[in-house]
């Protein structure tokens, strides 16, 4: 594989950039693989990459029903953070943050990791208290957390509504300085390119439609391009998890919901950080192109349509305007939606299943992009060794029976139903 560097850039300039190698090759399915990963989103591609790199297993196919990166990995708002209160989440996502810091070097692909800081605004004394508590829990787990007062915030985010008439006055905020954003497509492409260079087949436009299971053991998958034999299968299909699980006679504590996001027309530098509104569900950041990237609530009803309806967007943007009044002057460029695998306690599932050789990676809710490296890393371990990794050992499916839920928000099941 051609290495990307300043020298390769100069060299290719002489041929008008017409001779670059393709980043990864499209493959047709072979008859048999050691491992099949279903879903060429961030998690599937990262899993394949770490299987090849860390566990030296390369007879792998990543099978994708659409095109590589066309799912949530290419639809999310790219926020990276590990600002969790509970240990299982804090430790897992913090290890993930450390992987983001080196990911561009690791993949020889610029994922544009931008640790611009994420600020959660507080609009009451009670909310400040909660943030102090969360910040302290974070620091006990070695995660960076800083409390900000109103005056500091006035300097950092001057366009927020600090007026006396603000409906939700800003009291202060909790900041994770190392939080930030990354280029979502680059993450998918970077993992695909490296995995492919180590021998992983990437098979696009091929839908997995069923499984061959014999005596409780996986033998192969059925696809729109024929049957393929395999010893192991990893499910990384995000919002489509329930549909494939059903084919394995599993009913999961997951509902599929549409989450929308939108970007405005590009404007001059306006916002240096990722900022979340504390009196509702709205967040925004500014892309390198200058667009305001904004998102918030789920539409709120089961959906497999990768598009939502206007009332939710209107609601979310009303909150946005309450936070940054001058957003009201911007025109929207695009809106879109992705299908979230909402788990019943809001935390992910990485586990083995009742079928030998079938492994489950799902339940990422709205927050799975930031987990891409660490999810791939722990899931690859689980598949290769048929053993749960220490870091993801609290993300097992049986927690819904043992009662060890990881309900970060403390809201009980189905927190998305208002």
């Amino acid at each position, binding site marked *: 594989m051609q290495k990307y560097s300043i020298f390769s850039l100069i060299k290719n300039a002489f041929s008008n950039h017409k001779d670059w190698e393709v980043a990864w090759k499209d493959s047709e399915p072979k008859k048999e693989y050691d491992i099949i990963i279903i879903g060429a989103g961030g998690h599937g591609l990262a899993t394949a990459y770490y299987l090849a790199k860390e566990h030296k297993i390369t007879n792998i196919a990543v099978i994708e029903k659409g095109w590589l990166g066309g799912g949530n990995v290419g639809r999310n708002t790219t926020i990276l953070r590990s600002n969790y209160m509970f240990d299982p989440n804090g430790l897992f996502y913090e290890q993930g943050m450390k992987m983001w810091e080196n990911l561009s070097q690791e993949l020889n692909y610029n994922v544009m990791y931008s640790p611009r800081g994420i600020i959660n605004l507080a609009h009451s004394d009670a909310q400040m208290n909660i943030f102090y508590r969360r910040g302290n829990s974070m620091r006990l787990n070695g995660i960076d957390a800083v409390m900000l007062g109103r005056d500091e915030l006035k300097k950092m985010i001057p366009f927020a509504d600090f007026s006396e008439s603000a409906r939700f006055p800003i009291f202060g905020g909790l900041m994770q300085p190392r939080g930030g954003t990354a280029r979502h497509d680059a993450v998918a492409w970077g993992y695909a390119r490296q995995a492919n260079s180590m021998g992983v087949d990437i098979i696009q436009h091929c839908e997995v439609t069923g499984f061959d299971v014999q005596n409780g053991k996986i033998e192969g998958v059925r696809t729109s391009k024929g049957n393929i034999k395999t010893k192991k299968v990893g499910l990384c299909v995000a919002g489509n998890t329930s549909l494939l699980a059903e084919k394995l006679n599993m009913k999961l504590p*997951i509902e599929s919901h549409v989450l929308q996001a939108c970007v405005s027309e590009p404007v001059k530098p306006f916002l240096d950080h990722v900022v979340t509104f504390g009196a509702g569900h709205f967040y925004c950041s500014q892309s390198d192109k200058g667009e305001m990237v904004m998102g918030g609530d789920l539409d*709120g009803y089961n959906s497999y*349509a990768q598009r939502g309806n206007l009332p939710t967007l209107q609601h979310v943007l009303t909150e946005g305007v309450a936070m940054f009044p001058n957003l009201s002057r911007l025109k929207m460029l695009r809106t879109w939606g992705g299908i979230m695998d909402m788990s019943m306690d809001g935390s992910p599932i990485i586990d083995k299943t009742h079928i030998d050789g079938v492994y489950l990676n799902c339940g990422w809710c709205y927050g799975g992009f930031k987990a891409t490296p660490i999810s791939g890393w722990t899931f690859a371990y689980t598949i290769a060794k048929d053993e749960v990794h220490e870091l993801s050992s609290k993300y097992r499916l049986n927690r819904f029976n043992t009662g060890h839920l990881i309900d970060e928000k403390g809201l009980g099941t189905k927190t998305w139903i208002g």
Partner: protein
Amino acid sequence: MLEIKCPHCGLRSQNEFSYGGDSNTKRPELGKEVSDKDWDNFIYLRDNPRGKHSELWHHVAGCRQWFKVLRDTSTHEIFKTAKLTEEL
């Protein structure tokens, strides 16, 4: 915008409603012995089909009645609505 026909009030905009999920979930019978597994399933497991889904909605900014809706989760098309006491 979804337009939902409340069986009591007629066709109204989505803004007046809130969602209650899978309408086939049954609470284990009161006062009877219930296994942990049945209880967990009742709390955590819901139908999650792609296609026709029978679900509960609440006309929260209207008559405040709960009712059933048969809706397609891949197109959002609504086929039928019914009172709680009626079959969909």
